[in-house]
């Protein structure tokens, strides 16, 4: 059994595109869930309108930069559309509205009547050529030891991690500002914030839209990496991977999404690799390689449960805060 291969793959995931794209998505969710306390159970919907916004724009003859703008604007619109009615209601309504909206968007995208626009189940391929055309990195293989990347992968990774950096800086500035203070107050007690002259609804809407825009950016990077968008990329689980990442890092902490995402993808890839190796070597015979996707889901669940038991506040969270409620 080749442990080295599983480890190499795990490190590749942790520093590579999946971790970077999910870190961006998690930065967005952290603004919504971590700072403002909004239960957005349809975060994948924002990734989806981002990715599809970019892909459709290019498919229709537009440049990719315009596609990125369209994707982000689509997410802002989605945020307003869902937030304006649902954020006035109790927190659980937002959860219901968002989880159904994400699924509705996915089903509409893959529906036959929209085939000419979205290519339904086949998806849109090869829309990001112009991104790779401007790759400044010379052809070759880069890396340390067995962890090597092609110039193509390195280019996407670099851009994605730069965006992670920008997103983190944004949240760092917001979190330390009076704006962030109002958000934390709303998360804990909306009425207290309102009684002190803060328009709680407006702040919730702002954070919901900003989180959604970051989600769109994640969806765009995710799609550029795959050079394709397909409805099944944006399954409901993406939202819960992102939640796991935020909770793993600790909600409402600036660096949680980044570190959480790296650890999450390391663990997922490593266990994936281990099981795969064990299957090939014949150590396990009661499951098939095709079951791996389902096993991954189960692993995310187990990971979340272990986390809640061992470190409920997350990596960066403060334990004493959990016990301050009376």
């Amino acid at each position: 059994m080749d442990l080295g291969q599983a480890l190499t793959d795990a490190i590749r995931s942790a520093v590579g595109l999946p971790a970077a794209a999910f870190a961006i998505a998690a930065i967005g969710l952290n603004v919504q869930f971590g700072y403002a306390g909004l239960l957005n159970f349809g975060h994948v919907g924002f990734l989806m309108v981002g990715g599809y916004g970019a892909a459709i724009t290019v498919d229709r003859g537009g440049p990719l930069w315009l596609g990125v703008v369209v994707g982000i604007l689509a997410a802002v619109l989605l945020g307003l559309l869902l937030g304006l009615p649902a954020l006035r209601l109790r927190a659980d309504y937002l959860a219901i509205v968002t989880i159904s909206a994400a699924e509705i968007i996915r089903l509409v995208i893959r529906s036959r009547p929209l085939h000419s626009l979205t290519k339904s189940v086949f998806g849109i391929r090869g829309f990001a050529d112009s991104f790779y055309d401007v790759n400044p990195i010379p052809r070759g293989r880069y890396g340390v030891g067995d962890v090597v990347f092609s110039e193509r992968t390195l280019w996407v990774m670099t851009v994605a991690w730069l965006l992670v950096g920008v997103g983190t800086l944004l949240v760092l500035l917001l979190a330390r500002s009076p704006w962030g203070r109002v958000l934390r107050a709303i998360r804990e007690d909306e009425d207290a914030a309102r009684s002190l002259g803060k328009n709680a609804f407006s702040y919730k809407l702002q954070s919901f839209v900003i989180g959604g825009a970051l989600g769109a950016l994640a969806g765009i990077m995710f799609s550029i990496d795959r050079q394709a968008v397909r409805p099944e990329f944006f399954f409901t689980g993406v939202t819960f991977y992102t939640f796991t990442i935020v909770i793993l890092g600790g909600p409402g902490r600036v660096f949680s999404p980044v570190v959480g995402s790296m650890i999450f993808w390391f663990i997922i890839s490593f266990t994936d690799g281990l099981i795969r190796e064990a299957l090939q070597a014949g150590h396990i015979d009661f499951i098939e390689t095709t079951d791996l996707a389902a096993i991954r889901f189960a692993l995310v669940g187990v990971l979340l449960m272990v986390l809640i038991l061992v470190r409920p506040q997350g990596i960066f969270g403060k334990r004493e805060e959990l016990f301050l409620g009376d």
Partner: protein
Amino acid sequence: MATEPGAPGPSLSAAAPSGVDGVEARPGVPKPDPVLVVDGLRKTFDGITAVDVDHLEIPRGLITALIGPNGAGKTTLFNLLTGFEQLDAGTWSFDGRRLDGHAAHQIARLGMVRTFQLTKALRKMSVMDNMKLGAIGQRGENFFAALLPFLWSAQEQVIADRALALLERFNLHHMQDQYGGSLSGGQRKLLEMARALMAEPALVMLDEPMAGVNPALVESLLDHVRGLRAQGMSVVFVEHNMDVVMGISDWIVCLAGGRVIAEGTPESIADNEAVIDAYLGTRES
């Protein structure tokens, strides 16, 4: 019990301002200089009338107590006036400005700030952050300005200084870096009152400020309430403890069944038959 209404603190003016001298003790009586005027305010819950106030004026610069038996509609009236509950009918104005239909945060910004029966000191924020939150008109509360700290850092410093001065006055300055949740019940009441003052209100509405407070702290809390009046603020408070009400109020409004059944000075309320009936039940005739 330390609820005996004692003498006010040395630095505070002992005599109440005389804004209600000679005002007749009857429901809906006009005052010389009202800060809050309520007209025809009505609120029903599932057909049950919670508040039905024809006319009520709250005197400026004085401490007005809102009393009444359980279910009299005191807290509902509070919630209506501070925008936390939607009214069914009626109007009310604060400082001559119509406020019905305004949202809670707008009312607070206009200078009418409330506290809550169940203290809403934010537990997971430091005492200092709780205080800073209370300041109105912060530039850094705008999303775009928040990203440019040089736009608001000077104002933030001014707010912090003001917060520290208030914390010293309320004897909480030694706890400024602690979580709100680590304070005792009485300290949270103090923090909530101090935080409300950060908004520089003209009218402070205190919903049961003494509820759940260690008796040893009651006298200090009372002094702080008197301090608000000494600073020129108007105070309205809901309270059940009659010793407190009689000892501190300049004017008392008694509600029963959502209606104002009596108002007057503490002396005139003490032996008002309508009030006694409301509390003890109507006598057989």
